[in-house]
């Protein structure tokens, strides 16, 4: 079913994440939104973790032991990847918003994606072998 202006705002917002039939710019836009939501979620988690400090040293040490498990390390890697992508895309959007390199926006996206993937790989190797 097609999505139209008479639909509710929430169902329309799902279109932000629908890449079907869309071009490279939308892929960049979707990744930007997903990483922004992910990083905001992480910020809340981070505050909860810091809240553990208030429960005393033992509780905090126990918590630290838990988050050293591979699944948490992988979660941290996702945060690094999201931060890298979001930051680099921020530079792309910032440049094009001042009228710089607008016709090159697709190339800029491919480059930033390559750098973000490479950076995440390097971080991943270091995090899992440390």
């Amino acid at each position, binding site marked *: 079913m097609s999505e139209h202006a008479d639909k509710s705002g929430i169902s329309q917002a799902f279109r*932000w994440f629908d890449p079907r*039939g*869309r071009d490279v710019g939308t892929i960049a836009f979707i990744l930007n939104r997903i990483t922004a939501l992910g990083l905001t979620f992480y910020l809340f988690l981070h505050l909860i973790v810091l809240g553990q400090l208030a429960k005393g040293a033992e509780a905090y040490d126990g918590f630290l032991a838990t988050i050293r498990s591979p699944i948490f390390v992988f979660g941290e890697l996702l945060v690094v990847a999201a931060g890298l992508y979001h930051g680099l895309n921020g530079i792309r959007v910032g440049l094009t918003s001042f*009228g710089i390199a607008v016709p090159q926006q697709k190339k800029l996206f491919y480059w930033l994606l390559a750098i973000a993937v490479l950076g995440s790989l390097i971080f991943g190797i270091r995090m899992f072998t440390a």
Partner: protein
Amino acid sequence: MSTTKTKWTVNLKVYRKKGQKAPYYDQFTMEVDPDEYVLDAIERIWAFHDRSLTFRHACHHSTCGACGMLVNGVEKLTCITYIRDVVEDGGTIVIDPLRNFPIISDLVVDMSLFFDRMEMVGQRQVIPIAEEIVGSSQKAQSAGNGKEYLRLSDCIECGMCISACPIAATNPDYLGPAVLAGAQQSGLDKKPELLQIVDQENGLWRCHSAYECTAVCPSNVDPAWRIMDLRRQVTSQRFKRLFR
């Protein structure tokens, strides 16, 4: 003897909506020449299968901007979209009305707000002939660097950029790509009053750089570039004001 098959059988799945009734899809299986345009097939549905089907078209050569629809989920001017480019023999073409506009009936959407906004930024729909002849030399457009000239850079007001824009999907108050591009074409230097219209929350600064408008524009308007160029102009005006 040519082995190319000149008749294909395709299935057209067409969005239907009348009044307050729930929308649905109608299916029409028909023989087509793959070198015909999608609009030809839609017209044939109307002529031979269902006279109640409503859709917009006029020029049949990408000039009036009336025939914009979603073809398999992508904004296309159906009068210049070859059937062979969107389907294979035996396949299905899904036809929907443009998004981000209220639907009047079937494939016809209400573009009146969009047209009003275009007028608001100086892109009038009807220009008296005398005025157009006098003003024609001023209509020449540069590519932005003052050297080249763009062909076909006039917006045909098809609305496809608005349909493709993810921001217009959730914010009906956003002026939208064509309107902002129209403001840029009108020129802030020639019409300083446009600054107030574009330099606001739902104007220039609402764009989130998805570049879909430029991807679907059939007329080389490049609205995304024009939005960014307007931003550059507005930012440099503000910057200059700081040192006055």
